[in-house]
């Protein structure tokens, strides 16, 4: 066996979007504001995934302004409508859709006034990037002027909305039920190099293909995939919180090892869009699903490289060396061949 062995492995995954086996809900308020700007208030936000930017994009698109014109209110149980929690890959799906609906309502209020002002049907109005116009006319003005006109007519264009995802509980006996209304799927491939002298595994490449419904911000989606992959890699190869008779023995980052810049494979993302038919934005989510296939893909790649299957995470150098020491070249293959022969015999009815 060469000292450094390379291999590849793949793994697939699936995941549900938003809260599990229950109804999920989120609320939002919207206002088209002076100067053609916009306000969004909703009760949950950014934990780093980029939802603020996604919500600004959604609100801008719906209200005809630009993302940088959108102000998003603080998350505060006393000052904003309930949007439940920041987790469960529900931010884009739940909050995104409630913001889209609230923004749409505010825009419709404005459209009604402007349509009346211009004497055109409201359905002929369009707004984008700070401008509003009526189709097949020369009528056009800035959103700043439109909000001014609307307010001069005595109307503040506001909206409020709630979005619901209809999951159902599971039967206590057979577990049957419809836990989510939207599912995503993913597949990742890992390419590794195993140092058979030190037991060290380096992941050199990851190819990650994930269905996200619709990518509101592709760069943000990539960021979630890259972050998820690296957390998956950490769990696959190094991270291990340990206790001994209940006492923590990994009480700092000197003992609890995390991936650093030197551990990072080239991550090649492919975004697949299978739109969600049940929600206005048609987007689904990516936060959690990105992590699921990474560790098994790496374990499958290690097997491809050295013929050793690690069934107990993490695949630390010690574990790899140990497995190699007990490794009879071809043993797994012989066992598999025997199984195959038995299966063959069984199939022929012997």
């Amino acid at each position, binding site marked *: 066996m060469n000292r450094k062995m390379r291999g590849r492995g793949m793994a697939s995954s699936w995941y549900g979007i938003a809260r599990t086996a229950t109804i999920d809900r989120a609320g939002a308020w919207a206002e088209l504001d002076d100067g053609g700007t916009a306000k969004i208030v909703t009760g949950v936000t950014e934990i*780093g995934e980029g939802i*603020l930017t996604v919500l600004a994009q959604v609100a801008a698109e719906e209200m005809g302004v630009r993302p940088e014109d959108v102000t998003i209110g603080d998350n505060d149980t006393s000052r904003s409508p309930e949007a439940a929690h920041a987790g469960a890959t529900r931010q884009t799906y739940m909050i995104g859709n409630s913001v889209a609906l609230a923004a749409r309502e505010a825009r419709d209020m404005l459209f009604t006034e402007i349509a009346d002002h211009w004497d055109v049907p409201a359905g002929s109005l369009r707004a984008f990037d700070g401008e509003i116009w009526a189709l097949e006319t020369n009528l056009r003005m800035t959103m700043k002027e439109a909000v001014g006109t609307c307010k001069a007519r005595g109307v503040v264009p506001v909206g409020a909305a709630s979005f619901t995802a209809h999951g159902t509980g599971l039967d206590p006996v057979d577990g049957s039920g419809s836990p989510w209304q939207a599912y995503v799927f993913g597949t990742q491939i890992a390419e590794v190099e195993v140092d058979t002298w030190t037991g060290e595994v380096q992941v050199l490449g990851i190819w990650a293909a994930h269905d996200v419904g619709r990518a*509101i911000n592709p760069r943000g989606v990539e960021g979630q995939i890259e972050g998820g992959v690296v957390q998956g890699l950490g769990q696959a190869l190094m991270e291990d919180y340990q206790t001994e008779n209940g006492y923590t023995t990994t009480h700092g980052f000197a003992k609890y090892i995390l991936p650093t810049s030197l551990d*990072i494979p080239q991550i090649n993302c492919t975004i697949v869009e299978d739109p969600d038919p049940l929600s206005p934005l048609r987007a689904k989510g990516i936060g959690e699903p990105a992590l699921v296939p990474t560790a098994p893909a790496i374990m499958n790649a290690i097997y491809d490289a050295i013929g050793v299957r690690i069934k107990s995470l993490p695949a630390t150098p010690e574990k790899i060396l140990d497995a190699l020491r007990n490794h009879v070249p071809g043993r797994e293959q012989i066992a598999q061949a025997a199984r195959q022969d038995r299966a063959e015999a069984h199939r022929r009815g012997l």
Partner: protein
Amino acid sequence: MPKIDLTMDVNGRKVAKQTEPHKRLLDFLREDLNLTGTKEGCGAGECGTCSVFVDGKLVKSCLMPAAKADGAKIETIEGLAKPGSLTPLQQAFHKTGASQCGYCIPGMVMAATSALRENPSAGIEEIKERLGGNICRCTGYTKIFEAVEIARDVIAGKLPETALDEDATGDSFIGANVRRLDAPSKVSGRLKYAADIKMVDMLQMQVLRAPMPHARIVSIDTSEAEAMDGVACVITADDVPGTDGFGVFVHDQPVMARGKVRHFGEAVAAVAAEDLVTARRALAKIKVEYEELPGIYAPEDALVDGAPVIHDYAQDNVIKHIPIRKGDIDKGFAEADLILEDVFTTQQVEHAYLEPEAGIAYVDHDDVVTVLSPSQNITHHRHMLADILALPINKVRFIMSAVGGGFGGKEDMIYQGMLALAAMKTHRPVQLTFTREESLVASAKRHPSKVHYKMGMKRSGEITAIEFDMLSDGGAYGMSSEGVMRKAAILSCGPYEVHNLKVDTTVVYTNNTPSGAFRTFGGMQAQFATESMMDMAAEALDMDPFELRRINMMKIGARTHTQQELTTASLDRVLDAAEEASRWETGAPRMRGGQRQDLGGPDTRRPCTLGARIGDAADTETKDERVAS
């Protein structure tokens, strides 16, 4: 203790201050100068969030006594660019989306600035090595590398300055790479996290934690601590006015240990004092008498007859069991040509968000008890805290401060209750910031799991039956365990249509650090087992792993493990996309790494040998790279 006089040049301004001799440079910058862009992620030199320049050299300010920096020239994240502007590197971070939660980012920007100052033409391998002392838990580093390379080339004039601009938007903002709106405040260190905020008259809290994993509390004597100068209050479970208990599914965890401690590091009492040092000293004066109890440290041990009982309500130590049944597994296994059986385990994993838990509580002018913290679930926390405080729900307010990474780990209300109680007792703002060690012992982890797996297949590759049995260690409190087991069960057998299955997921109490919500909520543990089995089966059947998955995958109209009919399904598309993107060479997974032709492509990185890029040996290497480029 006598104070010391310090003089420094900080971000081009002369600073002369008296301070306490125990302060680290990090404390001096944050507390005395309010330069909170420099963060404390670990306090031990391990994470790099506290990186600053001292006389032009990149230094971890948590490791340097402030006195040692006397007379030095200090540069912090706040000093890199004039207010309102960003350096090319910061602009590049903004452009590529290199900041997510942002907590590591000031330190990362400092380290990257240092890298480009030391070697303006550093190659990617050198950049990686120079960032090696800075941990980022969110981004996977990839967009950070991209940003540093763009900035390097713009600074060197190899790329036009427009390379730092936002990508153009077409006729829709949906699907556009709009730059993150929160990035400027993150790359410049301006965003305030809970630990960065100061309020007038604010007290500091410290928590006394259980020194053993399972014990009865015989007595707690706080009198000596309470009598200390500078101590505003000491709180214990006795101070809880309402129904004491929180948790995501079952409210089994008291704000502070009540009657007994169930895991090492559990909160037992807390002190609010004029300053941190006084609060710490007061902790040492609290006398707790414990009577050790036999504990459970492995989930299997929780289920044996006569095992110690950890929570009275759960005499069998079971937090939750989720069963899923579909079809007839006996029939399914009888139809199988091949049956594989194996055991898979996963470890307990720490979220390691770079921002340790922190929060502030105060009682406002309307008598509303307000808690500001990086909570991932302000809605549910408000409900629970209202019950705990016996207040109407509109008299409790949660504000979600900027979250420096969560990943599920900030869904549990493990400290907000203590803050609220102290604020109510003192009518002053109270702040608590965890150390990294505290965060590690007190916060929930990813559930460790053990899966017994049995899979039956036909020679054709079709799965005929699966039996899946998972046992998980929930640790001392229920937290999200129930939901994690449910999700693990629902997703268990992967994205494949299996007609006969029997799935059980069980989580039990032990005296280990609690397990809770963590990105994938059980889905990862379950599918690690399934995807390993799928490859083992593919080898046994001499079949390409993609092919085996295609044979079994859920399609539109498939019935999931919980018998839900799917109206959309995209596994076929993601399989095709991944196979094509990776130039996958078809073949059964049987140690063919040595022969495959699809390895080492331009879409992989080079393997690395530590230390080979910077310094003598590597000089040649990077120079060669430069010549080549």
